[in-house]
């Protein structure tokens, strides 16, 4: 690449003197050509990388942006006491006995009434088919409301209910009249009614807050599936990782870098830490399964186990970053502190550590970001389970089953309904935004604590 190798073999250098500076000699021309070639290759590599990134992002954004919008139908539902509270006692236990199945007729009645009230042509559809335009999640929504407000029984309440997944898909371009004709889950007539309801202002597509707060939903109701439990689970795991890996990793690195004697044993530890950083994450999952679940008896699918496994995985990253940051602190600072009679400990904590802080924090955030996106080990410890219950607040919540963002993405991509593809892409966007925030945070921290020596 460079010309150094040619130096030896070349003939004695021609006289440099008496040459005009204005004409370029052979050697310089060759050097410049090599430099130009290298620059070209570098730019090509960068362009390929950028194109791949742009392609990836556009495909994810195109697929996923629509998951941030959701179609709702606004219905006046009469909470019929004859159905919900037959003996009129208002006894909550009795009311709770009515399953979601018992709420279906209420919705059907409300839907048919709304269609008629807005003067929408019912296209000759049966009442059941019209009611099917509403998500199967809707009865549960109303039931939860009634159980929370039993005094509302007998009144007419306005609900914003989820439209069915196919109706929602129709407004996101996933479903067309042609595909609807072939689909037994939706019919063109239903879509036409939906269009009319939309014109009447009963049905609309709006920002999908539920995507961030709702728990996962079953295969048949993608429109109700949200990231709530997954975000909580990921947050809990990050909490565990932060609380365990950061102090442990920083303490270990400080000890190894500043206090430990340099001998074969510390060398061995150093080599092994580097090796650990390269161990495939799934191996940590197996370790977690064997140690934390089978041996220590911690619950499956719990954020505590996920957090512990991710801690093990993140530790080497944090240790390596911290040691590099400590090494980068110039020895003259240590000498200065020792020279005025500071102890080793004072030297490290008063002078070295503050200077190494940006590096340590950057390393820790990169480690956390890695952990946030890690999927494989979580699959092994059962975090892939279908969880609809929100975990409680920590610390007890750490032992409740939960999901995690990357696992939720994996989970959704394995499901049949195309609406889940949209959800998965949306979840990827959410995950990427979190990672982006963490990286920006790392950059800001680095800037803030910029080297000052």
């Amino acid at each position, binding site marked *: 690449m460079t010309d150094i190798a040619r130096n030896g073999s070349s003939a004695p250098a021609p006289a440099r003197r008496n040459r005009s500076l204005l004409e370029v000699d052979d050697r310089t021309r060759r050097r410049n050509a090599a430099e130009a070639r290298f620059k070209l290759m570098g730019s090509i590599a960068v362009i390929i990388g950028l194109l791949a990134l742009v392609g990836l992002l556009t495909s994810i954004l195109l697929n996923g942006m629509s998951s941030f919008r959701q179609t709702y139908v606004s219905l006046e539902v009469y909470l019929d006491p004859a159905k919900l509270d037959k003996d009129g006692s208002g006894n909550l236990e009795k009311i709770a006995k009515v399953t979601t199945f018992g709420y279906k007729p209420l919705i059907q009645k409300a839907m048919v009434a709304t269609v008629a009230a807005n003067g929408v042509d019912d296209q000759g559809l049966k009442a059941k088919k019209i009611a099917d335009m509403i998500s199967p999640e809707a009865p549960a929504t109303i039931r939860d409301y009634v159980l929370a407000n039993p005094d509302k029984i007998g009144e007419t309440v306005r609900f914003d209910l989820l439209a069915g997944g196919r109706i929602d898909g129709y407004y996101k371009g996933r479903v067309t009249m042609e595909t609807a004709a072939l689909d037994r889950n939706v019919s063109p007539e239903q879509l036409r009614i939906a269009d009319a309801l939309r014109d009447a202002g009963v049905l609309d597509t709006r920002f999908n807050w539920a995507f961030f707060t709702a728990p996962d939903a079953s295969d048949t109701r993608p429109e109700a599936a949200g990231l709530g439990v997954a975000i909580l689970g990921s947050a809990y795991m990050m909490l565990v990782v932060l609380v365990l890996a950061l102090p442990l990793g920083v303490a270990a690195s400080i000890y190894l870098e500043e206090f430990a004697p340099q001998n074969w044993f510390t060398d061995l530890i150093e080599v092994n830490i580097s090796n650990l950083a390269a161990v495939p994450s799934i191996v940590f999952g197996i370790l977690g399964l064997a140690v934390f679940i089978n041996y220590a008896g911690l619950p499956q699918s719990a954020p505590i186990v996920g957090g512990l496994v991710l801690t093990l995985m993140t530790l080497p990253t944090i240790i390596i970053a911290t040691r590099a940051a400590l090494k980068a602190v110039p020895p003259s600072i240590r000498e200065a502190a020792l020279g*005025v009679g500071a102890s080793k400990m004072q030297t490290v904590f008063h002078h070295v550590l503050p200077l190494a802080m940006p590096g340590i924090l950057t390393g820790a955030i990169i480690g956390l970001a890695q952990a946030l996106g890690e999927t494989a080990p979580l699959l092994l410890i059962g975090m892939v389970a279908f969880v609809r219950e929100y975990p409680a607040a920590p610390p007890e919540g750490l032992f409740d089953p939960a999901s995690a963002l990357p696992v939720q993405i994996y989970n959704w991509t394995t499901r049949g309904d195309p609406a889940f593809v949209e959800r998965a892409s949306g979840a990827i966007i959410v995950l990427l935004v979190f990672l982006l925030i963490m990286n920006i945070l790392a950059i800001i921290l680095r800037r803030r604590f910029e080297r000052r020596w």
Partner: protein
Amino acid sequence: MFDTPKREAAVTKTDIKMSARNCQVFYGDNQAIKDVDVDIDDKTVTAFIGPSGCGKSTFLRCLNRMNDTIPICRVEGTITLDGEDIYDPKVDPVQLRAKVGMVFQKPNPFPKSIYDNIAYGPRIHGLARSRAELDDIVEKSLRRGALWDEVKDRLHEPGTGLSGGQQQRLCIARAVATEPEVLLMDEPCSALDPIATAQVEELIDELKQNFSVVIVTHSMQQAARVSQKTAFFHLGNLVEYGETGQIFTNPRDPRTESYITGRIG
């Protein structure tokens, strides 16, 4: 704490502050200092001179056990401070360094404010009982370091923002602030202009009223100006040690003569 009476007794008995016997220093297998015997007098300025790489800094760093921080460095022989072996296993180098301060060859201020640079030593040694006392120490030290007038209005700006020469004076002030009994200075004036150099030399002169000062220098004139004793090192050996006047006017060893007349170095 408990050894204070003993130390005072030792001080009154002799005016030799530090002494080295049979001192050998190795970096791995390389011997940097060979068989050095030297007595450093109390309330005296001792200059170490010699060509680059002859081991002046290495020997200086032995005197406050700064070499402990270099894993491959090994020191043999005995070095005493007030008659006590500083390499005794019972000695805590931290306590030693509080008594034997050091100014390094390259200025190395802490990346903190000028005030905190000076105040750090007194703080960790508990030399000030109040904020006002600490302010006093800072001002006094900066004045002794010939830096006060230049920085008195920006005590809370970073010490690393000063010029190289100012940084070196800051380091001198920092070393003085802890009131060491011996001050080791490794080429303290190599980055200073003649005015600052004169100020530092004045400071050294003043310090010798109370402390003993060991200064490494490449400037013959400086050694002649500030020191009472001079030691000439060559290739790890202490070639000649004696009264400064005698070394410069009437050297006994031909190597010393050729060095001070500029023929080796």
